[in-house]
């Protein structure tokens, strides 16, 4: 079971890769010892979004479904956590709020996914239907300013967003600051390794086979729709996890984290990084979030213009993604230097058979 972390659908299967992985993990684990608490909090903020990016990599890169709806599920779970944390009374029940809100996001993904996948929506229409749903949710939540829009004690507050919910809490310990940082690192390692195992498992191979040729996969006896729905639910659930963690982190959420331009962000991280590889997505998304935050301090608009240019540049120059492309070139060079044969190594990519 554990051996599935290595396999044909993921790059970085050698000993060198795992040594580097451990090195990075070690640095990440001792980082809070040397950094001040503000920087640790900032780092946590970047890590929160990684789940959404990994989920998109799974749906889009591995499953071949271009979804623009990551922030839809982000928003559902984000607001879900907010409402539940208030309604259930906060404190340790926030853990239940986290789990339930992610489940609500998965349920929403199952319903939306059922209608789209069983309706044989694919390709571009998958993108624009999910985006239409996302923008509609953002508009809807933006119009809930009145006092009549409440669930129990929880006011939705329209465009200004929800606030006043407890952060994740166990007993009387708030999961904030350094504790949150370690929780996030643990969650990311678990999700990353879990997804690697998933995509290298039998199910993962079927998911990739469907991306390559849905008809052939169907002819081979797989119910394509079920695998697609499963992929969509897992990936969207991860977006939900990001959303619930985000609300807990900042104790607020507004419709603007759902609508435009927020909805474009996961697409840009994943497209730039290399959608068809989890590791590239993990590394690239983190770098982009870091860069974006750095520029946002000076001008948010300029940062967004740059993100748009990155997206345009990626599809024009390196459609498979920059981080992934550069890593591939580097590893090819390395192999040539080491005098090893590169044939038969590395994952199967779009277009290869």
């Amino acid at each position: 079971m554990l051996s599935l972390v290595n396999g044909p659908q993921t790059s970085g299967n050698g000993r060198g890769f795992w040594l580097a992985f451990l090195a990075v993990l070690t640095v990440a684990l001792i980082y809070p010892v040397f950094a001040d608490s503000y920087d640790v909090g900032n780092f946590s903020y970047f890590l929160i979004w990684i789940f959404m990016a990994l989920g998109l990599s799974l749906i889009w890169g591995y499953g071949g479904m271009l979804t623009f709806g990551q922030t839809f599920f982000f928003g559902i779970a984000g607001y879900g956590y907010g409402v539940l944390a208030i309604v259930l009374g906060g404190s340790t029940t926030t853990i239940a709020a986290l789990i339930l809100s992610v489940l609500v996001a998965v349920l929403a993904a199952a319903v939306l996914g059922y209608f789209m996948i069983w309706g044989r929506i694919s390709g571009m229409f998958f993108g624009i239907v999910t985006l239409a749903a996302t923008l509609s949710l953002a508009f809807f939540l933006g119009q809930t300013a009145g006092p009549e829009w409440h669930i129990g004690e929880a006011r939705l507050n329209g465009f200004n967003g929800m606030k006043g919910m407890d952060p994740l809490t166990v007993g009387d310990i708030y999961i904030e600051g350094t504790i949150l940082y370690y929780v996030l690192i643990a969650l990311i390692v678990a999700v990353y390794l879990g997804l690697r195992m998933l995509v290298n498992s039998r199910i993962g191979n079927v998911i990739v086979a469907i991306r390559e040729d849905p008809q052939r996969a169907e002819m081979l006896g797989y119910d394509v729709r079920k695998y697609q729905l499963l992929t969509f639910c897992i990936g969207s659930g991860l977006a939900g996890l990001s959303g619930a963690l985000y609300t807990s982190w900042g104790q607020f959420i507004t419709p603007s984290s759902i609508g435009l331009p927020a909805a474009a962000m996961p697409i840009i991280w994943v497209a730039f990084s290399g959608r068809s590889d989890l590791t590239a997505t993990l590394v690239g998304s983190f770098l982009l979030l870091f860069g974006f935050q750095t520029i946002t301090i000076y001008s948010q608009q300029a940062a967004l213009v740059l993100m748009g240019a990155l997206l345009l540049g990626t599809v024009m120059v390196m459609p498979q993604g920059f981080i992934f492309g550069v890593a591939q070139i580097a590893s090819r060079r390395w192999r040539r230097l080491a005098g090893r044969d590169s044939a038969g190594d590395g994952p199967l990519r779009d277009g290869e058979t």
Partner: protein
Amino acid sequence: MLPELFSLFYQFADVFAFLILASAGLAIVFGMMGVINMAHGEFIMCGAYVTVGLVNLGVPLPLAQIAAAFTAGLIGVVIEILVVRKFYKRPLDSLLATWGLSLIVTQGMLIVVGSSIRGIGTPEGSFAVGDYTFSTYRIILFACALAVLVGIYILFMRTRFGVIARATMQNAGMAQALGARTGRIYAISFGIGAGLAGLCGALYAPTMTLIPTMGATFIVESFVTVVVGGANVLLGTAPAAMLLALVRMALNASYGQIIGQIGMLFAVIAIIRILPEGLSSILARRGR
């Protein structure tokens, strides 16, 4: 009785005009090239800004609107040549490229012109039927939507360009072999799509607040109309707009705007479950 009926018709016409004007350009580009232009909303924004800019300079409104549509169309041709052209074989990447463009334009506009500019009031006043008063300009918008449909019909069914365009749409390779310059046809079609988007923005400019992100108010409606309609403007977009306008009108009338919008989305999701290829697929089959 009559005023109530007219009021219902007026609400229907209002939504119908909005859906047609917002989606016609998108549908033409999708029908011709199989590309969904994510920067569609920004062409609408462009049309609106040019209109208001010209009116503030003293140009009469209708003239400013026509100029705005042409400006958007010209920019569309340039964008086709510089960007969109490279992606006809990779339609999914065209979605991303145009989205990148859309981000650059909206945020760039926010930097350059700021968050809002001085608007112009809705012209033409109002008229009364029974106890109700209606905006004359909304009726003009409905007439414009019908004119756009007629114009598209004439352009694609009754002109030489239309014949070549439809041939290119059906089989680009064959059309090219017969001497059609498909590259130019694509550029012109994209320009027409962008121009219609610009026209939409120009027409709605007097009725709304102008902000660089205003395109977002149009794209949900234009997306869902094209999704429901399918690849054919005349046989798809128009009936889809009619159907969605009916749904929206009924929901608006009984539950208000918010439910109207959400309900329309639910209707769309239900429709695509039943008719994956859109309305135009059935209508085209009937017609055969």
